[in-house]
């Protein structure tokens, strides 16, 4: 930046005229890029004692709104101190700009109110209470919409449901299969050491089979789907909320619940149990491979033992959970989507929340299932 691109303000000490008027001189470019230095100097400028000031601004090479504002502000501050200030030598177009600036009324900066600790705790609590009621209301609305569908089955949108089964179910097969396979490998690997010590190698089939079928594969599948599809639901519905598409649906007379929520929920309720079965199979294959390489349990021995160890009810306890998890994931994702405000920020926040809540609720539901199954001694 060259010298004439920097705004300057000089006090001409020698030029105090007989009438006691102090002369000041502005030079350089009073522009948004040029005034940065001057602004700092002005803050602790030693203004001359005289009451009358005359600012000669004929040497200003460029003036924009920021520069004009700085000049206007400086003059205003000096006048507040009881001086009389006149600005002379402004070019005509700069004069117009100064007039424009002085016509603008600015609000004095308001101090932000500080909320106390108690108030913020209260706010937080009310927020979560509202949240809970919102979620309940949402579940209720979904249930009512579901009733309508049951009464009028012709309103079920099969095409959307099938499409959702493809994206949330079929397209999740590779990742669910791979992770479940690895989970089977890990369990067999961890168990192999212990079982070998007791010479109970064959029980590897019981261990892998029961752990995968009863607990791990439903839970693992639900968590993957919550991350994959629950977040997608929240982001999709949230973006539609921002662009007012949800309002548009309502005005056209289509219930957003019916078009957006129920097909997703029904699709997941169908897809998640199927994915869980697939996870069961790949998990057991993982365990089988590990059992042969570490414990010398051959495939056919493993499968025979698996048939004895794992009853139908064990398999079913795993599968029964899946539709419940599916409903939780779909509802949490869609609910969070509807909670989006009108900013891009809130889409991100609600999407995060949808995954966190879905996983939390899935694990909570899994714990409840365990307690219930224990009572029923299944």
């Amino acid at each position, binding site marked *: 930046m060259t010298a004439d691109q920097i705004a300057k303000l000089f006090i001409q000490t020698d030029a105090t005229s007989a009438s006691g008027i102090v002369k000041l001189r502005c030079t350089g470019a009073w522009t948004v890029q040029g005034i940065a230095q001057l602004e700092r100097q002005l803050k602790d400028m030693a203004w001359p004692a005289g009451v009358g000031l005359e600012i000669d601004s004929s040497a200003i090479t460029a003036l924009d*709104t*920021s520069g004009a504002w700085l000049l206007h502000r400086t003059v205003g501050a000096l006048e507040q101190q009881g001086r009389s200030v006149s600005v002379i030598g402004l070019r005509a177009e700069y004069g117009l*700009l100064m007039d424009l600036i002085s016509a603008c009324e*600015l609000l004095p900066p308001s101090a932000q109110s500080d909320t106390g600790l108690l108030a913020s705790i209260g706010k937080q609590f009310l927020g979560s209470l509202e949240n809970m009621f919102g979620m309940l209301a949402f579940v209720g609305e979904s249930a009512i919409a579901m009733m309508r569908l049951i009464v009028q089955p012709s309103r079920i949108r099969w095409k959307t449901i099938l499409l959702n089964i493809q994206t949330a179910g079929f397209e999740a097969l590779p990742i669910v299969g791979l992770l479940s396979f690895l989970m089977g490998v890990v369990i067999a690997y961890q168990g192999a050491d212990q079982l070998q010590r007791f010479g109970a190698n064959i029980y590897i089939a019981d261990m892998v089979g029961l752990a995968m079928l009863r607990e791990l594969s439903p839970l693992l599948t639900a968590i993957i789907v919550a991350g994959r599809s629950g977040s997608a639901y929240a982001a999709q519905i949230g973006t539609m909320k921002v662009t007012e598409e949800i309002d548009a649906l309502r005005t056209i007379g289509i219930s957003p619940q019916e078009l957006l929520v129920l097909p997703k929920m029904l699709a997941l309720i169908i897809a998640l149990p199927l994915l869980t079965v697939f996870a069961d199979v790949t998990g057991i294959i993982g365990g089988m491979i590990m059992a042969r390489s570490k414990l010398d349990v051959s495939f056919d021995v493993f499968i025979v033992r698996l048939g004895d160890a794992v009853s139908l009810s064990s398999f079913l306890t795993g599968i029964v959970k899946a539709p419940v998890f599916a409903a939780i994931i779909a509802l949490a994702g869609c609910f969070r989507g509807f909670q989006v405000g*009108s900013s*891009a920020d*809130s889409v991100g926040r609600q999407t995060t929340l949808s995954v966190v809540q879905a996983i939390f609720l899935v694990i909570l539901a899994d714990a409840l299932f365990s307690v219930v199954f224990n009572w029923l001694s299944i």
Partner: protein
Amino acid sequence: MNAAMEQMQNTNTVIDVRGLHTRYGKTVVHENLSLAVQKGEIFSLVGGSGCGKSTLLRAIIMLLQPVSGSIRVFGQEVIGLNDEQALQLRRRWGVMFERGALFSSLTVAENVGMVLREHTRLSPGLIDEVAALKIALTGLPADAGAKYPSELSGGMHKRAALARAIALDPELLFLDEPTAALDPLSASGIDELVRNLRDMLGLTIMMVTHDLDLLWRVADRVAVLEGGNILGVGTMEELSKSEHPVIRDYFYGPRGRAAREQAWKKK
């Protein structure tokens, strides 16, 4: 002699587009399009929907890579600039998008202040003041600065977007549909604002608009686009005398006539 003349023309030409070809996928948008915008003028692009007005704007502000041709802004070729040069150029112009494109997670004042914070070394206090000034300049009430974009009406949204576009006092301003979705009163406020900005700050303004009133009131020159090419360039008076059927339809439709009569009454 010739070179000197060309040099002189260059210093007054802010935007110089030559032989521009652009394409969206397989659709050809512009074919061999050329136009020049002079310093200090309000230049307007008009034409039916889908004729490539906004695409041309996007190509000039480096959001769209043309297939071939040359675009010079302030005498500098914008195609194939490196990041540093592109940044230098971008600081000299402001863009107001059709739908505002305000950052939804920031208040209006923060939206304007963000540009200043990013590109200048002013103190935070002065930045807040300058941001408030820009907001006031665009005719927004003083309390609008603390609001979020979602709390603004359509017209206020436009004004806030304009405030952000002029945050750095650019030499060149691009306006995409500055008065679309505005009530007549706000729209004429924008007319006046656009003209004031040009007169006082010596801005060059390039805008895309359908607003015939705005064209009659503020545009110095107008280019009519159709089918990827420019049918005619000139003042509104010149264009309104054109014999070209498309241009005639454009300016002599019922709305065009009313706007013209309005403009004549004013004179």
